């Protein structure tokens, strides 16, 4: 099945070029040129992935990102011309899973997209638990469902992958670089800000008090590990 990709970009030439590349790589792209109509187009096309330019006429990419994130956990990859920390972190905090900085190589973009679309094809029933005993988080891996004391928690696929990666090896401390490789699919050391921002987003959903995390613990100077009962 060809993955459907919604490209939100106001530059017609870049959009067309992206279309050519994406089609040749086996995606089915659809296009929208401004932020106002992006949400409507998203609801209409129900894409498997969104490529989102951060600077858009009408509604800014950040706002579009937030709006989509409210209704869906669909993977969002930002296209940004700015690599300054402020811009990147703002984009990630608004809900984007990953970003590529213009001018990017087509192969790089496709690799990022494939990494986001990759699904663990687990059919073996697997249930993981983590967190404190009185507020345990249960993960149904093939069912992509997370519950705390039976109450479902909605996670984006990326957040789910991050949580599963930590939960599968509860005693191991993961460095940010290892997480980048396992969850985002980066082969070389990349931007560790990705990990920091997404751990924060994940904590906001799974922790009782994100200020005092019990599920995703920080190991100072090293990285993160799962909180065990």
């Amino acid at each position, binding site marked *: 099945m060809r993955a459907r990709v919604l490209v939100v970009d106001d*530059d017609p*030439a*870049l959009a067309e070029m992206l279309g050519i*590349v994406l089609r040749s790589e086996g995606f089915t792209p659809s296009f929208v040129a401004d932020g106002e109509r992006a949400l409507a187009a998203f609801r209409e096309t129900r894409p498997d992935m969104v490529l989102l330019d951060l600077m858009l006429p009408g509604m800014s990419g950040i706002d579009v990102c937030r709006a989509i994130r409210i209704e869906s956990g669909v993977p969002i990859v930002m296209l940004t*011309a700015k690599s300054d920390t402020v811009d990147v972190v703002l984009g990630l905090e608004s809900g984007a899973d990953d970003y590529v900085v213009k001018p*990017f190589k087509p192969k790089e973009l496709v690799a990022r997209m494939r990494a986001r679309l990759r699904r663990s094809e687990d059919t073996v029933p697997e249930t993981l638990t983590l967190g404190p005993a009185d507020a345990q988080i249960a993960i149904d891996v093939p069912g992509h469902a997370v519950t705390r004391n039976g109450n479902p928690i909605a996670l984006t696929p990326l957040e789910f992958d991050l949580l599963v990666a930590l939960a599968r090896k509860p005693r191991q401390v993961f460095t940010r670089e290892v997480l980048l490789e396992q969850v985002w699919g980066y082969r070389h050391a990349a931007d560790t800000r990705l990990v920091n921002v997404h751990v924060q987003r994940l904590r906001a959903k799974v922790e009782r008090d994100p200020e005092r995390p019990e599920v995703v613990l920080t190991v100072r100077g090293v990285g993160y590990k799962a909180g065990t009962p």
Partner: protein
Amino acid sequence: MAPTSPPWPSNWPRPLRIPERLRPAGRRAVAMVRAWGGRPVLMWRRSLQFRVVVTTLLVSATVVVALGVVLIDRIADGLVETKREQAIDEAEYGQSYALAQLQSLGGIADPDLADSLRRVVANLSARGARAGRFAVAIQTDTESNNRLSPLYVSPAEQSNVAIPRRLSALLDSRKLMAYQFVRTSIGDGPERPFLVVGAPVDTRAGEFQLYYLFPLDDEVAAVELVQNTLIAIGALLLFLLAAIVAILTRQVVSPVRMAARTAERLSAGLLEERMMVRGEDDLARLAHSFNQMAANLQRQIVQLEDLSRLQRRFTSDVSHELRTPLTTVRMAADVLHSSREDFSPAVARSAELLQTEVDRFETLLTDLLEISRYDGGFAVLEPEVTDVRVLVRRVIDGLVPLAERVGVGLQPDLPDEPVVAEVDARRVERILRNLVGNAVEHSEGKPVQVTLARGDEAIAVTVRDHGVGLKPGEAQVVFNRFWRADPSRARQTGGTGLGLSISLEDARLHGGWLQAWGEPGRGAQFRLTLPVRVTGRFTSSPLPLEPDDRPVEAYGDHFDGSGVDGVTVPDTGAGRA
């Protein structure tokens, strides 16, 4: 019988005693200054007000003292003169009276002598009303010239009178009326100042000396009163003057101080700070001008800030506006490049060129943006404690493919123990990549040495090549933007011409040095020196800028040159043969 010039009374209450009386006041002032907390010298240097007040006080005190001295002198002179005239009048009268009374006496042996003398003295002293109170004495001067001869004094209770010897001697020798100011006592009383007038009375009965003793108590009292009054008035005057001067200078100084405070606040960044303008005087004009200056400064600063903001915006916009089409171009080039097998050779080559040049364009754009970040002043150092050996190794590993392609050996010389320094790894790596890349490009096949060393305060990396080297003066200009050693040279790395400029800025951002050395034929060496700690300072680099390998290199280059000649000559010869 003109009066002889008077010997100045040695013990006259001289006005010069004033300074002594002022001393306590001076001590008080000094104590006051000390109490204000400043050493006077420091206050003198620091406070204009203090200086003006002190100067005014000193000058006016001198004037007041001088005036006082002159005034008291004049008053005292006047008083004494009056007294003297009265006294001499009185004495002349007494002389003629005594002469008349004693004329009839027969001689020294006359039995009436003593009585007559007593009577004369009594009558004369009874006249005391006119010249104030005085005592009269007659000394009978015998041939034996006995100074202690009977003395007739009136009032009688003041009989124990000491007539100054100098005066009686003067009278003796000159036979003229004379006077003297003395300090003596009458009877058992304390010593007081007197004006003693002596008049010779020559009779047939003998020579007598008539003395008038005028006490000068009143005059002394008068002068002292005047003197005290003058001191009091002078002191009050000085105090008032100091106060007035202090108030006046305060009026001038306080706006100046306010201006200084305002200027300090302005320079501290409080651009809204202004001075209060009151009235239309010079100080108001100062305040007005000051405010105008502050307003102008503020406008300029705001303008500059706007410009800086504008530049930042511009950089950001250029970044976005250029990057988006570049992305399209790049993707298009990539698509073309990946299917170049299907094209004719010319088109395929074009696709390849397009691909590489797009890469180069992107590098140039990135470099330009980096430079503009430095120009805009918003490049930020992100230091972390790093083992610089790791950076050097990473850079060398990254450049090995290029070095192999051009046939250049890379020879790192790294210490065995870690070389730890607080640096921005990304920037240091960029500097080193630039230096080593340049060295490889210019080394003409000879090895490139990279040496790392650590000192107490700084670390240093030198990158040495043995290529054409730098011409005199080029060591300074290599860091200029878009400067190229030889524009016609074939380029292998496709550098942007901004690399060394960015490296220099990177080094400066660390508070470090980036220097170049080179000589034609001896190659070039670049040295990067960085402080061990970000805030640290250093004065010398652990590695020398100029390498000490001269003989070997000179020989090698010479050999190369002669080799070329050696080939050329036989060639021509062979052609002829």
